[in-house]
Structure formats: structure tokens, C-alpha cells
């Protein structure tokens, strides 16, 4: 410590020098007075004084022996101690590095996904509003007319906008392509408070029917699609075969929602209808400054009730959901991430308890030292401080190791769930580093404070005696450490049960049938421009012709067109009823997925035809309307009756479909539509030839590696229409893997954390028991000498171990019930109280704990009574 400029130090040195000088002079004068010569008097004064620099140094140290200095001394001392016990150092640092590393990795994903900074003022005021009447989140749609009523009647929002994101065809470039478009009301950007980077955004009235064809580009689209054309403003772009003129470019990084490339006004959306039943749009708004979501919800509920009352046919049963827009965007990963964050925090706590026990055990060996320090006048706080400081090198090394580990682990983690994390940038940024540092410090305090308090509390006199004789028999330390073990086991049980629940979920998920045969299935999507394929016949003809043409490509076994291929994220649904049955109550109508297909679809994807027939070329627009239903629908609504020949009536909200009557011509096997975890497999298939539709997904079964045909198939599309873009060229197997990747990631991580917890708590149990055996050597030796049965001695120790473990399992079991209730939303096919998962968790813990108790117990039976007694 040679900080010259510490406050107050500046006058210290001269002061000290003149103080000592003054002393010397007085001494000199005294010597003179006693009759010495000048020279002698000076010499004697100096001799009497001793080394002046030594005195100065002593005084300096006294003044400036600061907190920092003593702490760094403690840290150095701690380092020396660690060097003397490398095994302890290694285990402690490894435990810390593992848990800090896991925490850092998980936190950095949470940081990137849930805590991402939004470049808008007061992002918490931006909410998504829907007319849903249930609490589970989903993107709920509304109609343009309802929206306009909400907008004019509400009092809680500064801005309320309408939007829908959908892929659009971009043509007129080098080759046709598909980009993501957002169809929005003119005030959409006002919700976010975004200003244009170039040009202008939409102005009032542009979203009216008959409004102009104007487009706003995202910065990224401007860069990549239009090579940063500086004269982009006013340039014409062709979207869905319509010419739009570019009026503005957004600032860099603004691509909400869903990575949009281009924004156009809502009335240009193909399904824009000014009819109350046409619910095709989403609502988004910025609440007024002092309005809470609850108030906004109350406001909208009143309007919703009015709408339901005034327009019962279209609006009966509507509710109101108001949810933070950020939460809406990441709702699907939110819960899994929170589960992981909780799990990894538990791991850290277990690690802390473990380290605390290690430090305690080591501390007991250092009891003599502590007692001596206390006897020599060290205060209790000083000793606690010393022990805490000694923990710092361990914590630092562990924290650093953890960071490195996290850096290594993160790419692996992200690679396990490429689609889940595709839009987020997970990095170890300043916030993550801060988090990890805080975590490390906290860990050090957590694992060092208990032992420090414990050790410093030892009463000197008694401890000096017992410490010197080494026969500490009962100490409260043992109880503390037992408590730590119980906590560790309890927390491990929570993690293990959680892990088993997820493992069983994943098994169930993987065992569930997609309904398709997945091998060698390739898909790609396209959307026909409505103004080019205007008639239903032209649309149907394109789909039919494309399917036939692709089937001719060498390597293709069969091909078909489907509107929403399973696991693509696309789907449609409808309300329906059996013809002739009473009209169901509003809001309680049967629902089924809908899909449009060309005749060869079932055969191509491997859905078996169970009854009747599939569609054929006779099912034209002029022929009677026909449908094929899934087995699940047949069973639920027709029971034992044969549905073939029966009739369905659609009661959908889409005005073009309402009241349609269909004859069922066939029944096919069930297939999952959106996710593998979905239970609902009721589905109605219609032929493309009887319904106008511009969107299609080409599916083809190949005899060769499906991806190798991608180019040939694209060429086949272009041979039909050179301006038609196709996109999302993917295999169905990929789609399924993508669908389960989040479940798998969660399962893998939880299993990892469960194992880590298991290892840590086992080490903890083992360590404490070994220590107890060590402390009770004398007693055990005497017992053996007196003829105690070795088996009994072993049981004695085992019992002590199992008592702790059972207590931990009991407490942990109860806590696990709460945990599993909390995570039900991420489970599949297993109940929160799944007996199998709980039993498996308990069993694993028991077996491992038995082993952990057996080893110390065995060593207890090997105590040599003679040696022990001689020691005494």
C-alpha cells in the first residue's frame, strides 16, 4: 500500500518527520544540559531514538493499514492455504465453475430473449389486444369493423393499430422471391414512436379503401434486396403482382413484428374485408402514460360487450385479452426459459451448500488457529472477514472458469435449438458479465458466511482445550452441516423430479404418431398473385398442373399440393355441425382443422385412406361439394355410424365459407397439424378444385435424398410461371425435429442440471459422513474394542447418512410437487404428479445416497481400536 494520494496522507509525512525531529532535538538539548559535548549529545540522542525510518514505517502502517490492505493480505493468505490443499482447491473451483457457467449460459439466453432492450420509449406501454375469452395466450384475430369501433370508443390508448404479417411475392427483381410483409394501419409506426430513416412513413387516410399503393422498407431489406439504392424513394416495387411506390425506409434494426421486410397499408391485404365476421387482423396499441393493462382491459371489455350485444352473430362470446407485446412475441420460450433459470439457480444453491460444507470441514481442522487468533485479541468480525476473504480466490477462479465454460457451452446450447433462437443474438454482453460477477461474489459470501460465523463463534477457553486434544465430540457444526446436506438433497430432488417429468414428456412426445410417414418428404411454399390468377378455376388449375408437373421430375415418387402442411406452422380451422342436428350454441360449436389438398395428398404423405375415397378430377367447382374427414372427427361426431355419405355444414366466421354444405366422401387416418404435442386431430379436407385459394405447399415423396431435388423442383415451378417464387424448401422430418427441439433442449438441460445436482449432493453427503466418522473415531474405536458388532458400527453410520437423505427427500418431494405444478405447461402426456417421475427421482437419489453413506460406513468398520486407544 503506497497510495500517496489517499485522503489525509498529504500532510502526514511532513508531520511525522517534524514530530520525530522535534523529539530528537529535545533529547539533544537534554543531553547537552547534562554536560555532553555537542557531538556526543547528538549521537546519544540518535542512539536513544533507534532507527528513525523503522519508527516512521511503523506509524505509517498503523495509519494506513486499511481495509483493503488487510483484505488483500487475507486473500494472499487464502491463496497460500489453497496451495497447501490442491484437492480442495480443485474441487471447490470445479464446483463453482460448473454452476456459475451453467447460470451464465442460461442467463445470457434469458438476457437475449426476455430482457432484450427495445429501442422504443416506454415499451411496457405497447400491448397486444385480442378478443379471446380464455387466458392461454394465442394470437387472436379481430375484424376491421370491430377494430374501428374499438378505436373510436376506447379511452385508454394513445394509438391503436391493426396489423398482420404475411409473406408476399417480390417480383421484378433478378428472380422472384418471397419476403415478409406487414399489412398495417397508417398509425402502426406511431404505436412504436418510430421515425423514418429516409423518406416518410404512412400518413392518415392511406389505409382507406382505394388508398394509394405505397410501401415502407426495413433498413435490412433496403440493404439486401435493393442494394442500398440511394434513389429508392419513389421507385416502384412489385409485391404480390401489384406495383407499390417506396415512400420510406425504416431505421436499422426495426423489423417488428416477425422480421418484416416491407410494410404496406392494411387494405391491400388479400383477405381485407369490411365485414364484421372477417376476423383476419391483430390489434396492437400504445396505452396512455398512466394507464395499466388492467384498466385497458376493463375499457375494452365494455366495448366488447357492446359489440357482442349489437352483433351477436359475429361477436357472441368475445372477451378481451391485453398482454405486453414483448411477452406476446416470446410467449413460447418464456416458460421454458424461466423453468431453466429456476433450475440453474437451484444448482447454484446446491453448489453453495456443498462448498459451505467443504469449507466448514476444513475449518474444523483450523479450529486451533481460529481459537489462537481470538485468544490473541482478534475480534469476531475480523475473523469472519478473514474467512470471507480467503473464499475470494476460490470464487474468482470459479467465476472465471464459469465464464469460460459458458462461452464454450453457449454455441452447443444454441445449436441444439437452432430455430428457437434463430432471431436472437445470444452474447456474453456487459449485462451478462455483471450478472456473473455478482453471482460469483454472492456465491463466495453464501458459501463462506456460514462457516465463518460458525467458526468464529467457538469459545476460546473450551475450544483451546478440546482443540488441542483433538477430541471434539459434539459440535453444533455437525448439525449445521447436516442441515446443509438435507437442503442439498431436497433441492436435488426438485431438480431430479423435474428432469424425470421432462424426460417422460419427451419420450411420450417422440412416441406419439405424426400420422405421416416422414422419410423423403420435401415441401416448399408459394403464393399466387391474386391479380394474375383471378378466377378460382385459374388458381385450382395452377395447383393441379404444378402437382402433375413436379411428379414428372426424376426421383420424385409422387407429389401433391396442400394448403397447410403439418408442422409448418400454417393451419386453418372452422366451426361446423352435422347437417340436420340442432344449431349449436354460440361459442360452443365443434371446431376442426381445415386443409385444402389435391387428390394425391394422402398417398404422398402416407395418411391411410380408411373408408370411402379421396378426391378426384370429377370433384370440380360445378360438382357437389365434398369433404374427407379424419378418423378423430368421425369417431367424435359420428360414433359408430359410417360418416361416408353424411353431410356437414360449415358455420365459419369467414363469410365466403359460411353456410357451406359438404358431403363426406372418405375417412382418413389422423395426423398432427400444428405441433406434435397437440391432442386435437379432428380435421376436414377439401379439394383445391372446389375452393379458391392462392396459397399452396408443394409436398413430394422422393426416391432419393429429398434436398437434392430442390433445384429441379424449383425449375419445374418456374417452367409453369417464371415469376412465381417458392420458398421454405424443407423436409418434413426437419419440420418435426424443429417442432420438438425446444422440448428436447429443455429435457437435455434439465437432465444435465439434475445430474449435476445429484453429483453435488452425493459429494456433500459423502463428505459430511466421512467427516463425522473421522470425528467419532475414538468412540467407534472404543465400541469396537468393547466388542461391538462391525455390522452394527456400519449401520450406525449408514443410519446417520440415510436420516439426512430421507429428510431431504421428504422435504424435496413436497417442494417438487409445487415445482411440477408450476411447470405443467411445458409437460406433455404426463401429469404434474406423475408417480413414475417422482418414484424415479426418489429411487435415483436413494441409490446414490446409499452408496455415499456406505463408503464412510465401511471405513468406520476399519477403525483400528488399538491405534485409536493409544492415541487417547
Amino acid at each position, binding site marked *: 500500500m503506497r497510495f500517496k494520494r489517499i485522503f489525509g496522507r498529504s500532510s502526514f509525512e511532513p*508531520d511525522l518527520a*517534524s*514530530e*520525530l525531529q*522535534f*523529539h530528537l532535538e*529535545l*533529547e539533544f538539548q537534554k543531553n547537552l544540559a547534562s554536560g555532553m559535548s555537542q557531538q556526543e549529545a547528538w549521537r546519544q540522542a540518535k542512539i*536513544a*531514538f*533507534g*532507527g528513525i525510518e*523503522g*519508527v516512521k514505517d*511503523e*506509524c505509517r502502517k*498503523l*495509519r494506513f493499514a486499511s481495509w483493503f490492505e488487510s483484505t488483500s493480505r487475507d486473500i494472499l493468505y487464502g491463496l497460500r492455504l489453497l496451495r497447501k490443499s490442491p484437492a480442495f482447491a480443485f474441487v471447490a473451483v470445479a464446483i463453482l465453475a460448473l454452476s456459475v457457467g451453467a447460470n451464465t449460459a442460461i442467463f445470457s439466453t434469458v438476457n437475449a430473449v426476455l430482457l432484450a432492450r427495445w429501442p422504443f420509449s416506454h415499451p411496457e406501454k405497447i400491448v397486444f389486444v385480442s378478443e379471446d375469452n380464455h387466458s392461454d395466450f394465442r394470437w387472436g384475430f379481430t375484424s376491421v369493423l370491430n377494430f374501428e369501433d374499438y378505436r373510436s370508443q376506447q379511452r385508454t390508448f394513445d394509438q391503436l393499430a391493426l396489423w398482420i404479417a404475411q409473406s408476399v411475392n417480390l417480383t421484378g427483381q433478378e428472380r422472384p422471391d418471397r419476403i415478409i410483409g406487414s399489412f398495417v394501419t397508417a398509425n402502426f409506426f406511431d404505436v412504436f414512436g418510430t421515425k423514418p430513416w429516409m423518406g416518410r412513413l404512412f400518413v392518415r387516410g392511406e389505409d382507406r379503401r382505394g388508398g394509394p399503393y405505397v410501401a415502407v422498407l426495413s433498413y435490412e431489406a433496403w440493404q439486401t434486396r435493393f442494394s442500398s439504392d440511394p434513389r429508392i424513394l419513389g421507385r416502384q416495387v412489385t409485391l404480390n403482382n401489384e406495383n407499390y411506390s417506396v415512400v420510406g425506409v425504416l431505421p436499422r434494426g426495426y423489423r417488428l413484428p416477425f422480421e418484416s421486410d416491407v410494410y404496406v397499408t392494411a387494405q391491400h391485404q388479400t383477405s381485407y374485408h369490411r365485414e364484421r365476421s372477417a376476423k383476419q387482423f391483430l390489434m396492437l396499441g400504445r396505452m396512455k402514460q398512466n394507464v395499466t393493462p388492467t384498466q385497458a382491459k376493463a375499457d375494452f371489455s365494455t366495448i366488447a360487450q357492446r359489440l357482442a350485444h349489437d352483433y351477436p352473430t359475429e361477436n357472441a362470446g368475445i372477451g378481451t385479452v391485453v398482454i405486453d407485446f414483448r411477452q406476446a412475441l416470446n410467449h413460447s420460450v418464456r416458460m421454458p426459459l424461466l423453468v431453466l433459470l429456476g433450475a440453474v439457480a437451484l444448482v447454484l444453491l446446491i453448489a453453495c451448500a456443498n462448498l459451505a460444507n467443504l469449507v466448514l470441514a476444513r475449518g474444523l481442522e483450523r479450529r486451533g488457529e481460529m481459537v489462537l487468533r481470538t485468544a490473541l485479541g482478534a475480534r469476531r468480525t475480523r475473523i469472519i472477514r478473514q474467512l470471507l476473504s480467503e473464499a475470494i480466490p476460490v470464487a474468482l477462479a470459479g467465476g472465471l472458469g464459469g465464464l469460460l465454460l459458458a462461452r464454450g457451452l453457449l454455441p452447443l446450447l444454441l445449436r441444439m435449438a437452432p430455430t428457437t433462437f434463430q432471431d436472437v443474438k445470444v452474447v456474453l454482453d456487459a449485462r451478462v458479465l455483471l450478472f456473473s460477477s455478482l453471482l460469483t461474489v454472492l456465491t463466495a459470501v453464501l458459501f463462506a458466511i456460514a462457516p465463518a460465523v460458525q467458526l468464529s463463534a467457538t469459545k476460546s477457553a473450551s475450544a483451546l482445550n478440546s482443540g488441542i486434544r483433538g477430541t471434539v465430540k459434539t459440535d453444533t457444526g455437525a448439525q449445521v452441516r447436516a442441515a446443509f446436506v438435507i437442503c442439498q438433497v431436497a433441492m436435488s430432488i426438485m431438480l431430479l423430479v423435474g428432469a424425470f417429468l421432462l424426460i417422460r414428456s419427451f419420450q411420450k412426445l417422440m412416441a406419439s404418431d405424426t400420422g405421416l410417414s416422414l422419410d423423403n418428404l420435401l415441401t416448399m411454399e408459394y403464393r399466387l398473385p391474386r391479380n394474375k390468377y383471378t378466377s378460382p378455376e385459374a388458381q385450382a388449375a395452377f395447383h393441379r398442373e404444378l402437382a402433375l408437373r413436379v411428379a414428372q421430375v426424376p426421383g420424385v415418387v409422387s407429389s401433391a399440393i396442400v394448403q397447410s402442411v403439418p408442422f409448418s406452422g400454417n393451419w386453418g380451422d372452422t366451426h361446423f355441425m352435422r347437417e340436420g342436428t340442432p344449431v349449436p350454441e354460440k361459442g360452443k360449436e365443434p371446431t376442426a382443422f381445415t386443409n385444402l389438398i389435391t387428390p394425391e395428398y394422402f398417398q404422398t404423405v402416407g395418411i391411410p385412406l380408411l373408408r370411402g375415397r379421396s378426391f378426384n378430377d370429377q370433384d370440380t367447382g360445378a360438382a357437389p361439394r365434398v369433404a374427407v374427414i379424419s378418423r378423430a372427427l368421425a369417431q367424435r361426431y359420428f360414433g359408430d355410424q359410417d360418416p361416408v355419405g353424411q353431410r356437414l355444414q360449415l358455420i365459419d366466421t369467414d363469410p365466403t365459407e359460411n353456410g357451406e354444405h359438404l358431403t363426406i366422401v372418405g375417412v382418413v387416418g389422423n395426423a398432427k397439424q400444428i405441433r406434435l404435442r397437440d391432442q386435437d386431430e379432428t380435421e376436414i379436407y377439401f379439394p383445391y378444385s372446389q375452393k379458391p385459394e392462392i396459397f399452396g405447399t408443394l409436398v413430394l415423396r422422393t426416391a432419393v435424398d429429398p434436398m437434392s431435388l430442390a433445384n429441379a423442383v424449383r425449375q419445374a415451378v418456374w417452367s409453369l410461371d417464371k415469376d412465381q417464387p417458392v420458398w421454405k424448401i424443407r423436409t418434413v422430418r426437419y419440420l418435426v425435429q424443429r417442432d420438438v427441439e425446444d422440448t428436447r433442449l429443455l429435457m437435455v438441460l434439465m437432465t444435465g442440471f439434475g445430474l449435476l445436482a445429484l453429483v453435488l449432493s452425493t459429494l456433500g453427503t459423502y463428505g459430511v459422513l466421512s467427516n463425522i466418522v473421522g470425528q467419532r473415531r475414538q468412540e467407534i474405536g472404543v465400541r469396537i474394542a468393547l466388542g461391538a458388532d462391525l455390522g452394527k458400527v456400519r449401520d450406525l453410520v449408514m443410519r446417520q447418512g440415510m436420516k439426512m437423505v430421507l429428510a431431504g427427500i421428504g422435504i424435496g418431494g413436497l417442494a417438487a410437487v409445487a415445482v411440477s405444478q408450476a411447470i405443467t405447461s411445458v409437460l406433455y402426456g404426463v401429469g404434474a404428479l406423475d408417480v413414475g417421475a417422482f418414484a424415479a427421482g426418489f429411487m435415483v437419489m436413494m441409490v446414490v445416497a446409499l452408496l455415499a453413506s456406505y463408503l464412510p460406513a465401511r471405513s468406520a468398520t476399519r477403525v483400528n481400536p488399538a491405534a485409536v486407544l493409544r492415541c487417547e
Partner: protein
Amino acid sequence: MSEQLDLLQGTLDLLILKTLALEANHGWGIAQRIQQVSRDVLQVGQGSLYPALHRLEKKGLISSEWRSTESNRNAKYYELTRSGRSQLARELSEWHRMSGAIALVLDNV
């Protein structure tokens, strides 16, 4: 010199406090006074005096101030603070108890 005794650390603090209880003084003065009052038995080495003074000042038991001496020289004077005074009282009674107890043992055994 053989009859001079080394001082235990705690004892030196006590002596300094006691000396300063009479009047404020500088380091040399304190040393002289202890030596005089103990009839040359206790001689305080500078090597322990000044560290002790600085230690006591850091603890807040004494405070220091630069003043002029009678011979018009600048010297650093120490004086007892309020907490120094009560500390002195405590340590004195402790000392009396201790020395009484030791005397009892020594006289009676």
C-alpha cells in the same frame, strides 16, 4: 540500565493515557514524564512510543494538534478525547483488579 523493565503493549497504552489525563503533552514530554514518575524504572523507547500514539489516535482515544511550546517551538501535542477518558477509567479499574489479584496470590502462596 539493568533495572529498567520492558513494557507490555497494553500497559504502555495505559501509561500514555494516564499521563495525558493530567495535561496535553508532546511525545518527548510523555516519555520524560513516564520515566520521571517511575523513577527511571520505566523507559519508553521511541520505537514503541510513536506507533502507540498513532494507534491510540486512530482508535479515537487521543487527538493531536500542532501548538507552540514555551520555548516557542512548534510541537505536536496529544490530549485525551472523551472516549479516551472513559477508556482510561475502564482500564484503570481493570488494572487495579488484576494487580490486586496477582498481589493476593503472590502474598498468600
